[in-house]
């Protein structure tokens, strides 16, 4: 179980304006700006949960992950993850966690991936039979049987990422932090990675915390999302609830005839001759009734129904919270 309480972290950022004069000035006086990366962050995550941690760039997602992974020490606040304080009992704590940073590599560059795995076996002191079994499973799920014989430097990003992910699961961690695991991957690799994460979460009850900008990741993987912006937690809830709150249906209709008035629950968005776009409020009218209403007024030639994508929801969320 993960519990964070009132975590605060500030960074000192060195600032100077461009130009030679200003560069020389830093010899005598350095200007710092204190930036609050995390401001009073608290949340709880239960065992076996899969949580999407989202927010715009610079919101504090990676900082939170780094604190939870034991790399950074916060300025204040408490954390209790499976009974330990990550940054204080680091070596003991990290035995049971796995971390993937999408923009970094944890594999040895010049040797085949399998050698890196072998080293991890020693690092985590995994018994030989457990190691072999788990490796076989991961290799199969991520389809990297042949890839792990190749040195890391010669792998494509998608191949390397799948190996990085496998390496984070070798020691059967209870908690895994994935910091943008699908960044820069093609559609096929993304789907492979998502399927894998889903499966391992269900089968091994691994708690997974995932940061991402990819809304499809969120949709495919997580039930619960935590939204962070400017270092504060803005929202913590179910994705389905959010969808209900923000989601809207649009009907685009091509037709013969005339229509000027709509019934309750329908609003014109666009109106042209022979083509209209209507917003449908699902709390007031069902799709079937709306279509029935339209059919009674005009001769429909073509009809298209659009749902708000998770992308739009995220954009709306960002707008609503002004981040």
């Amino acid at each position, binding site marked *: 179980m993960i519990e964070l309480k009132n975590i605060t972290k500030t960074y000192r950022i060195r600032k100077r304006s461009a130009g030679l004069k200003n560069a020389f000035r830093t010899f005598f006086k350095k200007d710092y700006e204190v930036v609050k990366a995390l401001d009073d962050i608290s949340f709880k995550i239960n065992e076996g949960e899969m949580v999407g941690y989202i927010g715009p760039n610079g919101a504090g997602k990676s900082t939170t992950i780094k604190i939870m992974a034991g790399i950074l020490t916060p300025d204040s606040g408490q954390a209790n993850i499976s009974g330990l304080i990550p940054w204080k009992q680091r*070596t003991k704590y990290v035995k049971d966690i796995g971390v993937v940073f999408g923009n*970094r590599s944890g594999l*040895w560059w010049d040797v085949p991936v399998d050698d890196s795995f072998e080293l991890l076996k020693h*690092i985590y002191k995994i018994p030989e039979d457990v190691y072999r079994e788990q490796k076989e499973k991961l290799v199969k799920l991520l389809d990297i049987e042949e890839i792990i014989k190749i040195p890391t430097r010669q792998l494509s990003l998608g191949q390397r990422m799948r190996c990085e992910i496998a390496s984070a699961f070798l020691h059967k961690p209870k908690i895994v932090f994935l910091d943008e695991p699908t960044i820069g991957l093609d559609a096929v690799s993304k789907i492979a990675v998502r399927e894998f994460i889903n499966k391992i979460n269900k089968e091994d009850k691994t708690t997974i915390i995932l940061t991402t900008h990819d809304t499809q990741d969120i949709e495919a993987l997580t039930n619960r999302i935590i939204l962070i912006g400017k270092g504060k937690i803005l929202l913590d809830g179910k994705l389905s609830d959010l969808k209900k709150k923000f989601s809207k249906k649009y009907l685009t209709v091509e037709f013969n005839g005339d229509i000027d008035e709509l019934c309750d629950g329908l609003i014109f968005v666009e109106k042209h001759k022979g083509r209209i776009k209507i917003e449908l409020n699902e709390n007031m009218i069902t799709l079937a009734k709306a279509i029935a209403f339209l059919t009674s007024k005009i001769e429909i030639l073509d009809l298209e129904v659009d749902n708000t994508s998770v992308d739009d929801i995220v954009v709306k969320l960002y707008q609503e919270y002004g981040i």
Partner: protein
Amino acid sequence: MRLYIAYFKMKFLNEMQYKVAALAGIATQFAWGFMYIMLFTAFINNSDTSSYSSSQVVTYIWLQQSFYMLFAFWSVDKDIFESIVSGNLAYELTKPIKLYDIWFVKTFALKVAKTVLRAFPIFLICTLPVLGEFSMSAPVSILAAIWFVITMFFSTIILLSYIMIIYVITITAISPMGVKITFSLIGDFFSGGLIPIPLMPDIVQTILKYTPFYYIQNIPYNIYNGYISSNLEIIKIIGIQILWIVILIMFGKFLMKNSMKKVVIQGG
């Protein structure tokens, strides 16, 4: 312990891939070796006050060229610097390992691998009698050979614990270059990497005896060539070597602990 052996093996195998670099290194070592030998022998042969004989200097230089990569202060694990600068260090921090110990083993493996590739060919060639007065002589006695091996080991450990301090300081700096160049320049010069310590002025020699630099390459080479020959003195020297190892490792670990609290993984 098995973990450290695994790390050693990994780094060693990794380093053994760079064979062409080793070949180029051997050629360079010969060029420098001859240059130094001609310089120093000309210098010694024309003075009558030196207690360092020209055959001793020849042996010193060849040993130095053979084990150059082992005791070169600039030859450090650049992967460690890279991981610090790029932030890949984050990965190592999320593993249940002691960073200090792992870096130590990695650097040790790297240096041994580089030395193995270079030392033997140089060692073989420079003992050829064809070279005449420029050829390296055998150890002055069997005992000297044994002392040589023992002190080589301790010298290596002193150097590694010194290099560890460079790494640790780098963690809190933005670029490793300044720290590295300063530390390796000081180290190279005062450990006798450019001029053998016995050829330095007496006062400098006396001062150096109170620094760790005196106890690195200077000791085993000068035991091998017979410049340091009293067993009692050698035992005393080994004691001081161990003392420096303890001091440097304790200091490095202390610094490491401190900088880990302040560490900021930049970017992303």
